[in-house]
């Protein structure tokens, strides 16, 4: 094995991070093994494979994986690789099968992963290969678990239990699901796959960066403001205008919304208020929520507004608007961001429509928000190739006396704090430092 010419721990210091973490391909390769290969990573949602034989093929960083629901209703996650000579078993995407037949030599696998049969078995005479004896089954991924339908996997067996790893972030996922009158969400409304020419960490940081919207997103917020001023009150309730307005919110607006920093690099931005908390609510939705939960619990659920939550390193989700984004790193300077949308089961269709309108506006590669974020990531990627200065500044609110961990381990922080990034890099250094 090549001798590593850096020590990951030396790249992260109090309040600063070495630029190489974003630009060095060798560090990226190690991240794929130790970060994306060393902790829980979001795979998908159980509603993507609702019936027996339904599958969904994706990847965890550079590792192709295959999610399957068996006839026994059990969900399983395998490496998407034939156990014969190694062809990828199915293409990325979803479908329904009775069994998986490898396209190369026709080995046939059951939805349990077991090798069912092979053509011309005589050549092995049940010596090395013998369908039915349990050998040559699809290789399961080391750890696989569900939290309220959100599926996570770890390629490494050495991770805490999923619930323990999520820790206080569970309450943000709970809030995502609790917003459904039926207490259930399901994937709906299509997927956006947005190609980014930058390191994956820019996105996972930026989503918690409350110092950038008023600078980067003026181009969308300002025209919306100007148009809004020309409209009558009726038209002002247009969701698009409500959605764009907070993008030019003030520093104090973002500071006041606050957030939480949690163990393992998790965090959320927003709490009592967020960029989503001033939207008008569909009275039919409120009625459905009241019927399901009663008014008090409804208020409790809906008043929690954490606009961006991160399950480090692979998942960002927006509980108040029912969408999530998956971070799929491809190379040190290339990342694919996937946006998935959810239906609140039991809610009127207006809720899904709002989610879709928001995402089309904000998350699309032809949207009015996403391309401007991407442009600053590009600027970061280019700027950080400079060998001097070596360090990236993440020290804002480092001495905040109120940032003290509560009983659940979550640290309350100001909206514009860099504590989010310090938390991510502390998890980063911890994972990268492991053999």
């Amino acid at each position: 094995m090549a001798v590593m010419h850096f020590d990951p721990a030396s790249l992260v210091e109090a309040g600063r991070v070495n630029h190489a973490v974003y630009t060095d391909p060798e560090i990226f390769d190690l991240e794929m093994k130790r970060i994306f290969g060393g902790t829980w990573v979001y795979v998908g949602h159980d509603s993507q494979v609702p019936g027996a034989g339904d599958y969904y093929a994706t990847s965890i960083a550079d590792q192709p994986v295959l999610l399957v629901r068996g006839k026994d209703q059990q969900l399983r996650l395998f490496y998407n690789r034939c156990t014969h000579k190694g062809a990828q078993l199915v293409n990325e995407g979803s479908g329904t099968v009775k069994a998986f037949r490898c396209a190369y030599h026709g080995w046939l696998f059951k939805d349990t992963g077991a090798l069912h049969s092979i053509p011309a078995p005589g050549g092995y005479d049940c010596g090395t290969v013998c369908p039915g004896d349990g050998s040559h089954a699809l290789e399961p991924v080391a750890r696989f678990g569900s939290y309220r339908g959100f599926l996570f996997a770890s390629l490494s067996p050495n991770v805490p239990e999923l619930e323990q790893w999520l820790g206080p972030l569970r309450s943000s996922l709970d809030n995502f699901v609790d917003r459904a009158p039926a207490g259930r969400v399901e994937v709906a409304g299509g997927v956006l796959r947005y190609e980014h020419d930058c390191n994956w960490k820019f996105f996972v940081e930026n989503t918690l960066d409350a110092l950038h919207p008023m600078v980067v997103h003026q181009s969308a917020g300002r025209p919306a403001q100007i148009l809004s001023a020309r409209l009558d009150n009726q038209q002002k309730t247009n969701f698009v205008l409500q959605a764009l307005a907070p993008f030019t919110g003030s520093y104090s607006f973002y500071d006041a919304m606050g957030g939480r920093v949690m163990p393992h690099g998790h965090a959320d931005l927003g709490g009592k208020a967020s960029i989503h908390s001033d939207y008008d609510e569909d009275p039919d939705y409120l009625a459905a929520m009241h019927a399901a939960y009663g008014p008090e619990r409804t208020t409790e659920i809906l008043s929690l507004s954490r606009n961006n939550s991160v399950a480090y390193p692979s998942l960002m989700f927006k509980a108040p608007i029912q969408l999530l984004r998956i971070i799929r790193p491809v190379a040190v300077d290339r990342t694919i961001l996937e946006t998935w949308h959810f239906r609140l089961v039991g809610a009127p269709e207006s809720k899904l429509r709002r989610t879709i309108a928001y995402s089309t506006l904000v998350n699309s590669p032809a949207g009015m928000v996403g391309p401007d974020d991407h442009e600053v990531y590009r600027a970061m990627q280019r700027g950080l190739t400079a060998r001097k200065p070596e360090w990236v500044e993440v020290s804002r609110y480092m001495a905040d006396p109120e940032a003290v961990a509560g009983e659940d381990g979550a640290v309350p922080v100001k909206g514009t704090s860099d504590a989010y990034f310090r938390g991510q890099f502390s998890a980063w250094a911890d994972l990268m430092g492991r053999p």
Partner: protein
Amino acid sequence: MTVTAPTIAKIADIDRDTHFRIGQFLFREADLLDSGEWERWNDLFAEDGIYWVPSSADQHDGIDQVSLAYDDALLRAIRVARQGADLAASLRAPVSSSRMIGNLMASHEEAQGFYIARSRFSMAQYADWGTRTFHGSYTHYLRPVGDDFRIVLKRVDLVNIQGSIGDILTIL
């Protein structure tokens, strides 16, 4: 608006003159876009017109399914203002485009009184980080207004839409 692909049965043939005028209209639209004449491009739309880039080939609407763009008049006004102003980080360095349109097939949808024009396009988009090409089809629903047209719907289907898509910094 729910829009489905026109079925041949509903469609009446059109004469060569109308076909020609539809072609000229599409070329004029393309030229306005490639010249950055955003406001004048927007003027080509009917008041209820929609600019739509679906996120999948078989998509039926932009309301229940996410799109790359699904602009009614309000959103087009914001988009046009954003394209024109100097504020957007992604547009600060000049972005330019050049497109070709061909394979025009036009027909008349009698029930609703508009023309349906199907065409293919190839477009190069240049930004300071590189040139990217987009290919696909346009479907225009055109409402006749005098001897001109207004766009009721412009649907853009990218040929690679099932894959991951990079920045679209101009209007397709």
